[in-house]
């Protein structure tokens, strides 16, 4: 059994160093962490609204969780005439670390393929209405497909450095715009006894997310968002073994209830 490692010389102009991005992110977060510890005065959580995407320090709250669905529209280039919105269960959790830092964990599952990410955020309010965060997530995905005509499985690692900008439209309505880069650090797939691996070291795509978070019913809060991915790799379609080396548009709809 052979292992093939693809060197990524192409796209030299847009190439970014995935591993370097992680190192840079780590250094930046370390500096921010030290800065936040040195702040004499603890930030008060002036924003009481439950939120998941809105970039704001968590205050006294230790945990925040939402559960929902993410619908990804299948792209024509890959699935041809079959264009459906494939739902994934989405469990999203925040864990407070200190006045500016919190952890962001997310599990997306379609049973036969799953994606788990964990990352750190540094959030900072600029004005009473405007705030932002910078973050970096590491994602791991795995999938298996053993049906009549398939004997496949795969796994991989991704990195998502991200920046979010939040604006409080009214006290009960939070608007967030998040932009992220997507680095497909590694992916492996197996078909029968055959295996191939890719070790990429470049920018594979970008994502833009717009999210509204607001009260919904009986003190619950609702997340409603759209995410536009432009990437040449999407873990949700690993089993189709798409070979296109061009950015493909994946629109996503995000629905969630903040618990």
């Amino acid at each position: 059994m052979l292992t093939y490692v693809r060197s990524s010389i192409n796209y030299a102009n847009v190439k970014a160093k995935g591993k370097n991005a992680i190192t840079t992110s780590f250094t930046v977060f370390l500096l921010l962490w030290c800065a936040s510890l040195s702040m004499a005065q603890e930030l008060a959580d002036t924003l009481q609204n439950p939120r998941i995407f809105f970039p704001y320090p968590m205050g006294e709250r230790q945990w925040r969780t939402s559960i929902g669905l993410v619908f990804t529209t299948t792209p024509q280039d890959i699935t041809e005439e079959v264009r459906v919105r494939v739902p994934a269960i989405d469990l999203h959790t925040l864990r407070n670390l200190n006045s500016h830092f919190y952890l962001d964990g997310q599990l997306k599952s379609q049973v036969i393929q799953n994606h788990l990410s964990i990352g750190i955020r540094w959030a900072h309010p600029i004005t009473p209405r405007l705030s932002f965060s910078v973050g970096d997530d590491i994602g791991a995905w795995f999938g298996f497909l053993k049906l009549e005509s398939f004997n496949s499985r795969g796994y991989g690692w991704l990195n998502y450095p991200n920046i979010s900008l939040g604006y409080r439209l009214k006290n009960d309505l939070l608007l967030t715009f998040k932009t992220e880069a997507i680095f497909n650090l590694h992916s492996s797939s197996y078909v029968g006894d055959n295996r191939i691996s890719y070790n990429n070291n470049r920018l594979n795509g970008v994502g833009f997310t717009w999210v509204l978070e607001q009260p919904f019913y009986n003190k619950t809060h609702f997340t409603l968002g759209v995410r536009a991915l432009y990437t040449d790799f999407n873990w949700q379609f690993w089993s189709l073994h798409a070979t296109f080396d061009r950015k493909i548009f994946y629109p996503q709809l995000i629905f969630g209830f903040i618990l």
Partner: protein
Amino acid sequence: MIKCYQAIVFLLLLLSLVGCEKKYEAPVPSLSWDEYNAPGAIPLTFRTRQAAEGVYSVTDGADMFGEQVALKWSFLIKGKDTTYYLSAFCEKDVSYIVLEGKRAHQTLYFEGYWRKIINTETGIVRFTIAADKGGKWLSADKMPVQRDSIIFSGVFGNNQDLPLNKITFKYQRPLNLKPLAILAHRGGGRTSDLLPASENSVEIVKLASRLGATGIEIDIRLTKDGIPILYHDNSLNLRLTQKNGLVGPIEEYTYQQLYTFVRLINGERIPTLAEVLDATLRNTNLSFVWLDTKYVGSLQVVRKIQKEYLQKADAAGRKLEIVIGLPETKAVDMYLALPDYASAPALCELDMETVRQTKAQIWAPRWTLGTQLDAVVQMKAEGRRVFVWTLDVPQYIQQYQEEGDFDGMLSNYPSIVAYYHYTQL
């Protein structure tokens, strides 16, 4: 509850996504090279063409096309004229080069274009073989016998730009000529791969050999009036056709309606099966046609056309196999309902027991099941051939050729199948 203006904000955000999908294009660049079109330049002889085929190392341009290429000729017959094309099959980014060649005195000139099929990169490429770099030898119709005896020196550019980047090929060895059926999916390739012809068209079938194919797979449906045509999807749609106002299943339209109102994405008409087989027989040297039956119904009309063109090929002395594909059990039932099914060449995609039941001469397992070496050996021991489908990932294509035992390989990228096959030691 969600307020009205909040819904409007969200709707505006959604609308902002409309039109986000980028439209990719990879048009074939137009060619005009004075040296190539000089009045004294003459076509290359059969012996010269034959001698130029082989595996070449890439000494300039390897970062663009890979370390080596396989050069192979194909041809297209148009009436009494035959045009010869020299294709270079490359590993890097599934790229290929299509050239035409001429000779002036003892120098050979080649002009054409290159393309990376997995993305949209393309451009012009020009080569010369100077007299002292093999041109004299090739002009005298002598075969090369040693490495570096033929040197293609050239330039390539991006898109329509003047080609300025250096590219050099040096002859290394003859092509691997072990038999392998290199089958092009949908007549030559998918519309989504931005080829200059639409999938399942007469034009893509004429292009298939230049892309490395020795055979094709085509998708057969029936019109409302029972004419077998080529079309992949269930419905008329903008993925495959230009805007025309017709919607819904293609089986709801007569052939005349489709002929009059529908054009494929690159402007071609939806062809009949007979038109495509006619073009395959008369215009190409393709030796295999896989009729993938996409409809549920009697196979009588397809069988009749298959029989007719097999007889025509025999009469013309052409080596051409035409097989009826059996992708599912309903197709198997229809095939077994044919009065002469035992003599109708067929290819079965289902399990080995069904293959035996149908007496199909070819078993075609899906590639996602792996190389299945034991099963392949068993089927071959029973006198069958085994073709694997539809394999596009270059690394898997290489592995399946090195570790598998297939007689044929169906791919949207016949050029990379050709590369791994012809360069195999």
